[in-house]
């Protein structure tokens, strides 16, 4: 799973969000490291929706603009949990090796 996909799912794991809400949340989660652009976000949402990991939820009009909220599905939660466990194992292995080498961890 690529990082933008992982962070989009992470953002939606806390509850449904609209497009701009996902962009600002992903920026916050990544500590300002990743600011999604609209093209990247909607290509990812198109793929995630097609794969059944995310689904469109409700719509609202704010200042004359349409906002659509997206929610993570049960399958999306399972995939995100599996990916988080995989990343944790890798990170723990890296830290253990760094300790062995007397590194900063």
């Amino acid at each position, binding site marked *: 799973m690529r990082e933008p996909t992982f962070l989009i799912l992470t953002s939606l794991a806390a509850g449904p969000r*609209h*497009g*701009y809400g996902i*962009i600002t949340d992903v920026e916050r989660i990544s500590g300002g490291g990743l600011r999604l*652009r*609209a*093209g*990247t*976000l*909607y*290509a990812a949402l*198109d*793929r995630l929706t*097609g794969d059944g990991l995310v689904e469109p939820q409700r719509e609202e009009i*704010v200042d004359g*603009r*349409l*906002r*659509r909220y997206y929610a993570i599905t049960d399958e999306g939660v399972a995939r995100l949990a599996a990916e988080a466990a995989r990343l944790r194992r890798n990170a723990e292995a890296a830290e253990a090796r760094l300790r062995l080498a007397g590194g900063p961890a």
Partner: protein
Amino acid sequence: MNDEDARQRELESRYRRLLRWYPPRHRHDHEEEMLGVLLQSARPGQARPSPRDAADIAWGGVLIRARRSIGAIAADRGWRDAFAAIGILLPLFMCVKTAQLVADWARAGHPGAPLLPPGHFTWSVWPHPHYDWLGWAAWPLIAALGLFGARRLAAGAAAATIAAYVALLAAQYLRGDGMATPVMAVWWPMLGLIAAGALAAVPGRRGLAVLGGRGLLAACGATAAMSYAVATQADLLRTIRYQYAVVPAIVVAAALYGARTPAGRKAVMLLLVPYGWFKATAGVTDAALAGHAVSAGQLVFLAASAVMAFAVAVGAAYGLERTLHYIRIGQIVDGAGRVPR
């Protein structure tokens, strides 16, 4: 209306233009929503999209279009059947070349003998071609594996054969004793790759079911006829007879036979458009380059145009089927009240 409103409007219309990169269906569902996100992300006073934003929007559209097209083709039974049939037909067709090499071998007493006396244009990659048969020896085996249902194995063997052939060609090219003609350098590897892809795409024995007993018999008969034509050719006259009589007759017959079903039409497009490209370019380039090595730039151009021809074939077949589909819908609507058969 103040300046800020004007800038906002200009920005919106520019974003709207960029969203034309997206498929109509996606625009219908998401254009207003995406515009909202884009305008919310814009800096105050911004009047035009940044180049990076513009590239990102366009690239997102390309990705979504590609996903939709591949999804539609993968889900379409007609395409799967077309690939299944091609997975059997192309390896059989490649056997014609094997037959020619075996016949030359028998005539000359060693493999890869030149087909024509020195000084004539030759089908072979090398001026004194002693290795070229290696690239063809595996095709009867690949055809048999495909026919008996071991299609993944056949696909692997086809890919390996083409890789070996291209490596031999590259080695010869780097040595600088190249007479590689476009037909050898681009056309055969491309046919081999289409065969490998078709074999890999549809596992199982679907191809036999699609072709049917008579179709398989006709394909084997055509292969035998072409093999006989090339195996007995000993002079330029017969080469011409083969190129301008036997092959076109078989191609036309196969196209007419295939055009009766949706899968057949797709298979015909997939094979005929590259064949048309080959006829259009190879004649010119072979004549222009006879006796000269093909330059790297020319090879890249030929390979790129071959891939383009294949992409155009897929697009054209897709468009043709949609048109036929709408014509059928139109006929049903026109005949409303009558039960469509």
